[in-house]
C-alpha cells in the first residue's frame, strides 16, 4: 500500500471513528508534498490535484525567475459539497488573499513579484499555475508545496 493510500485509509477510518459533537480526538497524519512547474508565458500547467477533500491544506509557492521572483502562502480547501475552493493567505505581490470560487480560471494567489504568475482555480476543483501572456520572460518556473 502506498503512503498516500495508507494515509487516506487511516483518514477515512479515523473520520468514521472520530466524528463527534462537543468532543475532541486527534488523528495524526504525515504528509507534505512538493511539485515543480515550468510554464511558458501565456500558458498554464496541467491541473494539479488538491491533495485532500474538505481538509485544510497549507499551500505555499515560489516563482524563481529573476527579477520577477516571488512567493505566497494560503490555507485552502476543496469542498466536495459545492465543488468550491476556498482560501485565505498572503502573497508577496498583493498582500492578503481571501476568496472562494466554483469556476476555473479565477486568481488564487500570485507567485511572482508583479502578479504575472499566479495560482488559479482549474477544472474539477483542481488548481493550476499560469503565466500571463504579458509576462516579460519566456518562461516561469518554481515550486508548490502542500502540507495537510
Amino acid at each position, binding site marked *: 500500500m502506498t503512503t*498516500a493510500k495508507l494515509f487516506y485509509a487511516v483518514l477515512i477510518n479515523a*473520520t468514521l471513528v472520530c*466524528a*463527534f*459533537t*462537543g468532543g*475532541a*480526538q*486527534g*488523528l*495524526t*497524519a504525515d*504528509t*507534505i*508534498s*512538493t*511539485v*515543480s*512547474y*515550468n*510554464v*511558458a508565458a501565456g500558458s*498554464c*500547467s*496541467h491541473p*494539479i490535484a488538491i491533495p485532500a477533500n*474538505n481538509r*485544510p491544506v*497549507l499551500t*505555499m*509557492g*515560489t516563482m*524563481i525567475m529573476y527579477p520577477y*521572483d*516571488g*512567493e*505566497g*502562502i*494560503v*490555507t*485552502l*480547501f476543496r*469542498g466536495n*459539497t*459545492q465543488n468550491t475552493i*476556498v482560501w*485565505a*493567505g*498572503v*502573497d*508577496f505581490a498583493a*498582500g*492578503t488573499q*481571501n476568496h*472562494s470560487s466554483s469556476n476555473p480560471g479565477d486568481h488564487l494567489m500570485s507567485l511572482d*513579484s508583479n502578479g504575472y504568475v499566479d495560482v488559479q482555480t482549474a477544472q474539477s476543483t483542481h488548481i493550476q499555475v499560469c503565466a500571463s501572456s504579458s509576462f516579460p520572460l519566456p518562461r516561469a518556473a518554481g*515550486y508548490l*508545496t502542500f*502540507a*495537510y
Partner: protein
Amino acid sequence: MGLWFAALATNESAHASQTMIPYSLVPGGCTSPILANAQDPIFLMGTMIGAGQQGVGGVTLQTNTGDIRVFDWAGTDYKNGAEWNEDFGVGRPIMALDSSGFVQVQTAKPGYVQVCNVSGSPVAHAAGYLTLVHIGGQARESEIYYRADGLSCSAPIAVPANNKPVMVMGANIEEYTGAAHVVLRDDKNNVLQWAGTDAAVGNERNSSPFTSHIMYLDHLKGIDLQVATSTHLKVCNQTGEGTTGYLRFLY
C-alpha cells in the same frame, strides 16, 4: 511541445507532522479543549465545510503556559483576512472557520484551543476539520531554539532550502511574547524574499539581500527576525533584556 514544457517537472513527498481533528457542532456547542503545543509555535489551520457557509483559515499560534499564560497568533482567514492578536482569556476568537464568523477557533484553558459554533441558529450544523501542523523531527522539518541577549542578535540560522518555499514559524517565549509566520525563499541572486503575517503589524512582505526586518516575533516590535545573509537569518533583540524562543521550518 508546449504541453510538454507545461508539465509538472518533479513531484516529491515526505513527512510532516500534523494532528487532524474532525468536528461537528450544533449551535452553541464547542469541542472539548484541544491541546496546542505550549510555547513552541504551531500552525493551526481549519475548515468549515457546511454548504453556504464554507470558510477556511490558518494562523501560527503560541500558547504560553508559564507565568504569562497568554495566547499569541498571526495568520489569515477567509472571513476577515489578516488575523493577529494576543489574549489572556478563555473563549476569545482566534480565527473564523466559516464565511460569516459564526464558527470560530477560540482560546480555551492555558495551552488549549476549542472550536465553537456561536451562531445560535444560522449555522445549524457546523462541521469541518482542524489541523495542527507541528514539528516532529521528520524530514523537511527543523526547529531552532534561539537565544539573544539584550540589544544583540542570535547566531546566524541557515535557511534550509533554496528556491523552494520555506515556511518559518516563530515564537518568542519570554516577557515579550508573540507568534508569526512567513514563507520565504532565497535564490541565486542572493536575495531573500518573504510574505506572511506577524503579531505586531499584520502582513509582512519584502525582499532584501542583507540585514533587513522580516517579521516581528512579539507584539511590541522588540524581537525581530532579520536577514543575516542571503542564506541565513538571525533573531535580533532590541529590548534591554535577554530573550529566547523557537523558529520552526517546514519545507
